[in-house]
């Protein structure tokens, strides 16, 4: 008994484990089996043979190949409708015959197990071996084999008839007999080896033949050891015949489904196990616990078979169950059965396939709340549900919810297309019956925030609508471009107007150009772009007027502010219009250029006038001439020649000889707005600093002079040192800077050349590269980085008489600095003690140099410079036309506030002659810098 239980447990776990696998893995496993099948030899048709008890099954899985029946049933599982094809993954699983896998994947041998206890009801027969131990008075052990006559021969006792006795009876008999004979001794008897029995397995078994099995074997053990039942064999009608008499009919389903093994009898010697061919079968596919092919044994209705299959899954759509049946005229038919009604009693025929479809994976009675809410998700729908009842409290909405607009996305149950409904949320929550719309099942309610990206939340809806679009039914989507709070694509509700959609996009923003907005529309049929210019002021004033038209699907709406580049925004439309020029027509674009805010190309709307184009261009700039503009018009002549006619336009006067602003524009017109004559963006500013009565920045007109400026500044103070006036001018500075940059650039080039050129090595006079580089570094360090732009002027001459000849016309950015009087002369550069000295009229440049201790060794005395207080630079050398006696420099007179420079002799450093010329250059260009700095240090 225990032994049988063990086997049962073992088989059951095997088969259930296989069933519990997900469909996909099952299929792939099945494929693997199939491949293995093709490689392994088929054992089904092995000749009838008496196999030994330890028969090794060469191919453990030989019976796993799908039978003909399974193949046929699985092929008919093709989905009969498109709807069902969608569920293919669930119902298209291959069906297998139920129960046969109990015989697969088991241990290859069926050795009778000696270690398990022998059941009490075991019938002793010839061949069983008893072990008998006697102890007490004597101590012996016997191994006693039951003879063919059914006796055991006990020494000193004789024979005992045991065959036919139950094990416990035989044991008691032996022990009693021994104890009776041997007084005082105790005996223990047990079975050591069991006899074997020979049974015959015939019919639809894998390996039919005679089998020698352990005497303990049951019917099922024997079948398993014989390789199981073929898929063509019946599991429900296994017969055991003993001496020609049917002793048991075993239904394996009773065991598998109910655990009932009452007919799993122990086999006796000479029993015949007969497996008849399989009986009627029914396939069960789809949403049942165990989809498989079942053999019938008395079951007649769908309900019976579903019980075999373990019942329906919760996901089964029981009311729509289909039964495929082979009719007598050799065709399949389909019978529908309502398993919740009478269908459960539908009679079955052999070969039927019951297909239990899954429920559609859709929620039907929900609405979905999305967007800017605390808890987005599904909510229960009930009849008469309204927005206000879904959002029953404002606490459901997050901070910053836009109460102006909510979108309801709805599936139209008739057309199966998506629709949207825009709802005023605030009104809906307040209970306004018009805004508080009734919800339909499966509605999606999108709540917006005032600041978030709106089109992102609507993308899903918009994409769905765009996918549904066709030529005759364009997507009900409107594209909002430009100056909207939330630009992007919006789904369209029938009958929405421009201001409505603007409100849904966050409202017309402050700063929107109310005079010019563009509605671009693709006209159905000829695919042409149609432009409407909209005056938003009128749209707001007349909500049902021309300027607030109803938006059609796929319209584009452009709003502008004062800063956006309008032609850039409108470029896609312009490009389309250019492509769409009809035969013999100029494309419907116009352009405006010149003094307007947004010059460029604009689409031409019907009846557009010059003034409209100026409005479109953002209006005239402040510098635009209001009087005259030029309109270039392309005229196509009758002979197809095109002439460009330049027309003068009067923007101010309606009644002029010129074309007027009310002139109608033609395609291709170009309007050029001229600037006002001598227009200046800002007035010229000059700055006067230092020793004047009212220093500061003054605005000057075009021809204002230095003298008049000084007069406006109230004249000079008594400390003013007119000779030392520094006059800097921006234009001069820029020129100087350019020159300086060029020189520095050349120097850089030269440096690079020195690096690269090997030719220098030949010249003995030249130093090696290291020194050359040093030289240029010194020169570069000497050079100033920034030009000053000082203009040397004669201030006294200009101011004294105010005569035009001496006066200076001021420019924008001029700076006049009048210093205090200075009675010093400073000496800088290569002197022993650079310092300032008291000006004395009898001293000249060289005297000051001597006062500073004279020149150093590296100084270049003959190249010394004097920067006079008025900015003039004079070399000591150039003052005298010759170099004077004995080549010594002449002594230049200096003015108070001057600076004397003694330059470094570059030649002394390295012997490079031309390096000196660079130094000269820099000094001449920029010496003013140092002196000016010096002047204002005090």
């Amino acid at each position, binding site marked *: 008994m225990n032994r049988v239980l063990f086997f049962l447990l073992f088989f059951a776990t095997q088969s259930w484990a296989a069933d519990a696998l997900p469909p996909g893995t099952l299929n792939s496993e099945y494929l693997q089996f199939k491949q293995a099948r093709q490689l392994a030899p088929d054992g089904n048709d092995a000749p009838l043979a008496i196999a030994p008890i330890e028969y090794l099954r060469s191919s453990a899985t030989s019976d796993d190949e799908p039978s003909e029946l399974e193949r046929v049933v699985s092929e008919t599982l093709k989905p009969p409708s498109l709807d069902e094809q969608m569920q293919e993954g669930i119902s298209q699983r291959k069906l297998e015959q139920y129960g046969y896998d109990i015989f697969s994947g088991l241990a290859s041998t069926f050795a009778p197990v000696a270690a398990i206890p022998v059941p009490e009801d075991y019938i002793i027969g010839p061949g069983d071996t008893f072990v008998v131990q006697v102890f007490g008075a004597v101590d012996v052990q016997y191994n006693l084999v039951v003879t063919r006559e059914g006796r055991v021969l006990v020494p000193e006792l004789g024979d005992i008839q045991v065959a036919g006795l139950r094990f416990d009876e035989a044991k008691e008999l032996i022990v009693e007999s021994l104890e009776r004979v041997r007084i005082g001794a105790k005996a223990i008897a047990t079975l050591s080896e069991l006899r074997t029995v020979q049974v015959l397995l015939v019919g639809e078994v894998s390996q039919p033949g005679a089998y020698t099995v352990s005497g303990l074997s049951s019917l099922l053990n024997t079948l398993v050891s014989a390789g199981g039942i073929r898929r063509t064999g019946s599991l429900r009608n296994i017969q055991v015949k003993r001496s020609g008499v049917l002793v048991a009919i075993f239904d394996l389903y009773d065991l598998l489904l109910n655990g009932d093994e009452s007919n799993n009898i122990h086999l006796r010697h000479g029993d015949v196990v007969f497996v008849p061919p399989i009986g009627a079968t029914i396939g069960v596919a789809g949403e049942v616990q165990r989809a498989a092919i079942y053999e019938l044994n008395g079951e007649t209705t769908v309900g019976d078979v579903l019980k075999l299959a373990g019942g329906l899954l919760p996901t089964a759509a029981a009311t729509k169950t289909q039964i495929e049946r082979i009719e007598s005229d050799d065709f399949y038919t389909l019978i529908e059965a309502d398993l919740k009604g009478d269908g459960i009693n539908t009679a079955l025929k052999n070969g039927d396939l019951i297909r239990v479809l899954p429920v559609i994976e859709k929620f039907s009675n929900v609405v979905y709340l999305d967007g800017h809410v605390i808890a987005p998700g599904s909510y229960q729908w009930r009849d008469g549900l309204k927005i206000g009842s879904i959002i029953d409290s404002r606490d459901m909405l997050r901070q910053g919810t836009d109460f102006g607009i909510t979108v309801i996305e709805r599936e139209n149950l008739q057309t199966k297309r998506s629709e949207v409904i825009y709802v005023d949320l605030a009104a809906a929550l307040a209970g306004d019956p018009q805004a508080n719309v009734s919800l339909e099942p499966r509605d999606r309610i999108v709540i917006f925030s005032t600041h978030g990206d709106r089109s992102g939340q609507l993308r899903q809806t918009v994409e769905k609508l765009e996918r549904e679009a066709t030529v005759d039914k364009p997507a009900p989507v409107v594209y909002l471009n430009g100056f909207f709070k939330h630009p992007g694509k919006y789904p369209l509700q029938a009958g929405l107007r421009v201001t409505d959609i603007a409100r849904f996009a966050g409202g017309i923003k402050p700063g929107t150009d109310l005079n010019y907005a563009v509605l671009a529309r693709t006209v159905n049929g000829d695919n042409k772009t149609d432009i*409407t210019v909209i005056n938003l002021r009128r749209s707001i004033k007349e909500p049902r007027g021309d300027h607030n*038209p109803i938006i059609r699907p796929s319209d584009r709406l452009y709003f502008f502010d004062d800063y956006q580049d309008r032609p850039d925004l409108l470029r896609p439309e312009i490009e389309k219009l250019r492509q769409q020029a009809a035969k013999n027509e100029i494309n419907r674009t116009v352009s405006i250029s010149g003094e307007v805010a947004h010059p460029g190309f604009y689409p031409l709307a019907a009846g557009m006038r010059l003034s409209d184009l100026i409005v479109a261009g953002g209006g005239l700039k402040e510098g635009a001439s209001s009087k005259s503009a030029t309109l270039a018009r392309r005229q196509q002549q009758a002979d197809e020649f095109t002439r460009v006619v330049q027309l003068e336009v009067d923007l101010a006067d309606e009644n002029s000889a010129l074309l007027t602003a009310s002139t109608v524009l033609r395609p291709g017109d170009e309007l050029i707005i001229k600037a006002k004559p001598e227009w200046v963006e800002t007035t010229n500013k000059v700055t006067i600093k230092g020793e004047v009565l009212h220093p500061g920045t003054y605005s000057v007109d075009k021809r204002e002079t230095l003298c008049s400026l000084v007069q406006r500044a109230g004249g000079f103070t008594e400390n003013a040192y007119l000779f030392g006036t520094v006059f800097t001018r921006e234009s001069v500075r820029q020129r100087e800077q350019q020159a300086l940059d060029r020189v520095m650039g050349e120097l850089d080039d030269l440096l690079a050349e020195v690096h690269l050129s090997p030719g220098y090595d030949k010249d003995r006079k030249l130093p090696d590269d290291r020194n050359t580089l040093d030289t240029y570094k010194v020169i570069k360090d000497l050079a100033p980085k920034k030009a000053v732009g000082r203009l040397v002027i004669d201030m006294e001459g200009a101011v004294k008489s105010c005569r035009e000849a001496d006066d200076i016309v001021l420019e924008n950015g001029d700076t006049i600095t009048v210093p205090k009087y200075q009675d010093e002369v400073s000496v800088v550069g290569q002197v022993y003690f650079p310092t300032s000295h008291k000006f004395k009229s009898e001293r000249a440049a060289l005297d000051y140099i001597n006062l500073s201790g004279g020149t150093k060794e590296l100084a270049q005395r003959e190249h010394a410079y004097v920067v006079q207080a008025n900015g003039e630079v004079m070399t000591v050398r150039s003052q005298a036309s010759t170099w004077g006696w004995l080549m010594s420099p002449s002594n230049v007179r200096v003015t108070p506030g001057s600076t004397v420079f003694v330059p470094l002799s570059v030649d002394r450093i390295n012997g490079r002659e031309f390096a000196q010329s660079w130094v000269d250059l820099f000094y001449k260009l920029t010496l003013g810098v140092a002196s000016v700095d010096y002047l204002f240090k005090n």
Partner: protein
Amino acid sequence: MVKKLIKSTALIFVLSLAGCSSMEALVSVPANQGTSVVSDYDLSLYQRSIHTFDPLPLNQKVAAELLEKRVNNVVILLDRGLSVSEVRDVPVSLFQVEMVRRFIATSPVEDFSFLLVSNDRPESFENSRVEWLSDREELMTNLTNFSLKPSRAVVPLHLALESIYQRIDEAAGPTAILVFTDWDQIDMEVQNAISRLAQYSEFSQGDSIMAEPAEWKRSGITQPSCVHFIGMTNYLSRSKGSIQGCGISKAADAISQPSDMASFAEQVLYRGPRDSDGDGVFDFEDSCPDTPEGRIVNFAGCLKFSDAGELE
């Protein structure tokens, strides 16, 4: 044998020379003078084209596009006092007459009153001598009466203009004055004369700003008269003498061809197509010529949106 060799060598030499020369002829690079010049037209081509002027009459366009007249009257003044007597071997006077002929041939003469005067016939400025004409044949006949030789007595251009202003008041409505002259002729005097015309237009007789406006001024037509110049000896157009941009100045060459002349005449004579409902779509392409004011129209001139706001 040797002789033959020499011969053949010589032949090869000659052939190679010929090859060189032909190569040179293939690629001819013009010498670069260093300055860009506007070269003369090919005269023969030009003279041929004089007689092959095939006018592009404006009648059709006027009828098709319902052009509105800019002026009622046209005064054509031939300036006979040009400094140059010939242009490309053709007498300027002949050239002038030809240009006038082309203008008349292109214009719908019947719709305007033409006055044909020249400043070598001072008597033509007097009222009785020269008639306003509206007949193409008569105009052409008159044109042939102009002497092709310059007269000794020529009225200065600005005086001629002033005289014309006296006659403008005879005719009703604005007038276009076409002066066939030369850019050199337009001096300060002429410019002043044109400025005075602007005053005449503004204030009628021009003596006083208090004066009564002329009849046509009162009738609501406010387009004043303009003076246009055709430069006979010039190659390039200039905006000389244009007062308030009203007048057009064109070189004769720029308008001598049919389509150019048609474009010029259209600019001088017509304002543009009529638009009776003022919707910005001209009547000749307006399917709905009585659109209510202030409505948005489509390119067919009809209402774009119905009263409900839908596309019609």
